[in-house]
């Protein structure tokens, strides 16, 4: 077995170890002078390397950063270790300091002796001992780190929008122009979606010089990353085309739940039951509601929450649409009884109140029921206090919830985005990044993200546009992740484990050489592949097993006394 270079570094290596007092936080509990002496005593371990160990008040302060800069220059440091706080606080600060000198920021390491030692170990000697062990671990790890260099990339500001519905059009209009082109891929004959192809938005999209519409087309293949996607679009009436784009917006909308799939709803073709959307289109076209036998209905019931039990969620927008339709029905036929059958009424915000008031004003009746079972035109209703009643309505309109579009699974696999429990695309973070996805550069607009009302759908479209306008600026350059995985061609046999587990599609096969290859611009250094590789052929830079294991070996070498278990009460439940 060969000696690894790490054990005996070649050439003069000078490691600077700087211990931050952090006011009382560290110096108050850890004896930094004892730490310095212990480290210098152990210095001999790193053959051929000199150790400089100093303490300072506040390394993160302005003067502190200047002190570090001078130390790096004056001592000609080749490696830097900072014993201070959590990397989440000041890792970037100290990397910034290194960037200001000619020491590569990746030949530096922060060792958390505050949250991991000072704040959690009461007995000072125990905390000091632990700090020494962690710092020794940090030194042995930094010795095995290699310099990494950021390579900024030219950005393609253009955007590909999939889906020409309300959200897709809104996004396209918000993004097109000012040096940015949009390609709108629409599966149907023309953009418009629920707003209709003759709507103002559809007209604006058609006329916009920077929006190119690909009708009756579908996305079939996507490779690339934020700033540099290549999307293959197959067209029904033309050859497949490869579109270059810097970002992709998924605005494929959604479908409504099939009413008869709800066990409480059953009707046949000869019942007078009309789906909500059909009735909306009929009225929008100026038509009148008529029964199958042509006669005008005397009583209409809109049954809310169809499918909510099966879906497990309230779609939040169907109550408003139902009551708006009910009000229009009353306006068209003031003599017709229109009743809305619901349990809860989900009408959030001022808009919701407006719709409710207009419905009440136009005389829409409301029956609140624990449960409503529809068979044909007859409704068996269980009131809130449990009393059952049955009634027949000339016309029944089931109001179903929203379900994912049928193309969701295919596109999700293609774009490497997981689905959530309800089958919609899973957003990056439900609260602080709802329109982003796990694949950086792919955004969710409208009901592709989940059920919502039209205005929120348009706001989601605006949010995608906002993310793209502020992150994908023409002429600016993007700096991709540097701590990426690399595959050593000599060792790889191309088995593909890494390709299977890569969630960003950053690894592809090279059949001629029989190996897998990492696209370093797409890789985000998550390390999934590193864990999956059965051979030693793949490693993630800056987090190689060698570095991690040597850090642990070194930290445990002095066998720190096992810490006493904290009393149960203190443990944060």
């Amino acid at each position, binding site marked *: *077995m060969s000696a690894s270079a790490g054990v005996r570094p070649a050439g003069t290596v000078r490691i600077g170890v700087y211990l931050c007092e952090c006011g009382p936080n560290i110096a108050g509990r850890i004896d930094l002078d004892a730490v310095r002496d212990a480290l210098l005593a152990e210095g001999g371990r790193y053959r051929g390397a000199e150790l400089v160990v100093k303490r300072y008040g506040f390394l993160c302060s302005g003067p502190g950063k200047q002190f570090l800069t001078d130390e790096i220059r004056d001592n000609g440091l080749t490696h830097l270790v900072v014993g201070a706080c959590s990397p989440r606080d000041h890792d970037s600060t100290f990397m910034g300091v290194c960037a200001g000198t000619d020491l590569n920021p990746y030949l530096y390491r922060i060792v958390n002796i505050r949250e991991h030692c000072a704040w959690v170990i009461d007995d000072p000697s125990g905390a000091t001992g632990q700090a020494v062990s962690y710092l020794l671990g940090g030194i042995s790890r930094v010795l095995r780190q290699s310099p990494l260099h950021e390579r900024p990339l030219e950005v393609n500001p253009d955007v590909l929008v999939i889906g020409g519905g309300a959200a897709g059009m809104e996004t396209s209009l918000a993004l097109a122009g000012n040096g940015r082109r949009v390609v709108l891929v629409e599966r149907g004959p023309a953009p418009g979606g629920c707003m209709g192809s003759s709507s103002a938005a559809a007209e604006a999209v058609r006329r916009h010089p920077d929006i190119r519409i690909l009708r009756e087309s579908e996305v079939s293949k996507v490779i690339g990353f934020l700033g540099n996607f290549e999307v293959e679009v197959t067209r029904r009436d033309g050859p497949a085309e490869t579109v270059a784009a810097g970002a992709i917006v998924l605005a494929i909308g959604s479908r409504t739940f099939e009413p008869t799939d709800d066990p409480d709803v059953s009707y046949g073709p000869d019942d007078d039951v009309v789906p909500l959307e059909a009735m909306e289109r009929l009225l929008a076209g100026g038509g009148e509601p008529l029964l199958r036998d042509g006669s005008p209905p005397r009583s209409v019931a809109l049954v809310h929450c169809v499918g909510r039990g099966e879906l497990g969620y309230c779609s939040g927008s169907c109550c408003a649409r139902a009551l708006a339709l009910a009000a229009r029905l009353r306006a068209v036929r003031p003599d017709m009884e229109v009743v809305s059958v619901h349990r809860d009424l989900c009408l959030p915000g001022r808009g919701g109140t407006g719709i409710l008031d207009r419905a009440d004003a136009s005389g829409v009746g409301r029956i609140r029921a624990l449960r409503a079972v529809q068979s044909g035109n007859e409704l068996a209703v269980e009131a809130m206090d449990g009393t059952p009643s049955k009634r027949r309505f000339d016309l029944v309109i089931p109001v179903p919830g929203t379900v994912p579009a049928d193309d969701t699974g295919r596109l999700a696999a293609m774009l490497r985005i997981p689905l959530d429990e309800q089958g919609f695309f899973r957003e990056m973070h439900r609260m602080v990044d709802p329109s982003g996805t796990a694949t950086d550069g792919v955004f969710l607009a409208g009901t592709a993200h989940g059920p919502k009302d039209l205005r929120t759908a348009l706001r989601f479209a605006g949010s995608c546009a906002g993310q793209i306008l502020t992150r994908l600026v023409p002429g600016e350059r993007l700096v991709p992740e540097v701590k990426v995985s690399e595959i050593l061609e000599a060792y790889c046999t191309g088995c593909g484990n890494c390709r299977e587990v890569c969630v960003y599609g950053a690894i592809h096969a090279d059949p001629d050489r*029989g190996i897998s290859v990492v696209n370093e611009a797409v890789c985000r250094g998550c390390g999934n592949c590193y864990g999956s590789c059965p051979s030693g052929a793949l490693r993630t830079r800056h987090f190689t097993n060698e570095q991690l294991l040597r850090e642990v070996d070194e930290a445990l070498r002095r066998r720190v006394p096992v810490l006493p278990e904290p009393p149960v009460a203190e443990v944060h439940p």
Partner: protein
Amino acid sequence: MNSIVSRLDASAAVRELLGWLLGEGRTDAVLTPRRLPEDGSCDLALLTAPEGLDRAEPLLPVMTTNAGQALSHLSLSGRRLTAVLKPCELRAFTERVKREQGSFERLLTVSFVCGGVFPLGRVLSDGPDTLAAAALEAARRGETPAGVRETCAACEHFVPTNADVLVSSGEDGCRIHLCTPRAEEALEGFGGERVDTAPDPAGIERVLAARSAARAELYRALPVEGGLDGLIDLFGRCVGCHGCSRVCPICYCLLCDFESAGLEGDLPRFRAALDERGGLRLPSGTILFHLGRMTHMSFSCVGCGMCSDACPAGIPVAAVFGRTGGRTAALFDYVPGRDAEEPVPVTVFREEELDDIG
């Protein structure tokens, strides 16, 4: 040469010596073969406490792995180490030190006049205890035990030249020779009568003669002369497992050139070969591997015999490499592992070289 007389047999004497060194803190750890009676097998052990020595069998006539290979990595640590090495293991370690794979700095080497080791198969069938007894009996008689590895029976370097401590057995126990200042310093204060003797030359001459004859006979039987046909006869049975390079103490590469992607065939190349020749042997490159390994390391081959022992196809690899390597080294009058200062021939350029080839 300053020596210590011991009434014990050589193995027990060395065990006592190791126990003393550990007890006195003269060394941090010792490396020695060990018997595992509960499993009926044995292994090479690194022991850091005297208590672990009860099952140690320093002169066990078995080589589960060449200690020179196992030692190389350990010798780079900061700890002081005492290693019991058979002469070929010491020479193998010396060859590795020449290639930056080990260091003598903190090492005390204990070696002995080696009677040879039995093949692994015999350990399986007879068990380590009977083999140890057979070897001890032969050592007393100053002969090579029957049934040892064919390369051991043919080995002429059975007396270590550069060990710190050399143990030679006799009828009435054994002698512990302190060959270097390091040995003197390490064993300063170790009990036992001190005399000035050297290993018994006469016995050595007798064994040397027997082994030279065995070696000549071994090499004569090898079908190496008949070009490709000879090679097919010799390496035909090879299944390409590269076990021989794996257990060889000299082969230290993490990825052998003959396992790398560079020499791997692919369908287009096989198809072209198919057109030229009637048939194609698969997996390809088995014989190429042996010839390549031979060029890379055979001049450093110390003839320990691990490769033949490990070969699942029973190919006499050790004999072939020993013969070819020996003749190559002789061109440069080089003996692998004889002396740590002697550079490896391929790494040195000398004006007057190989004049008798051209």
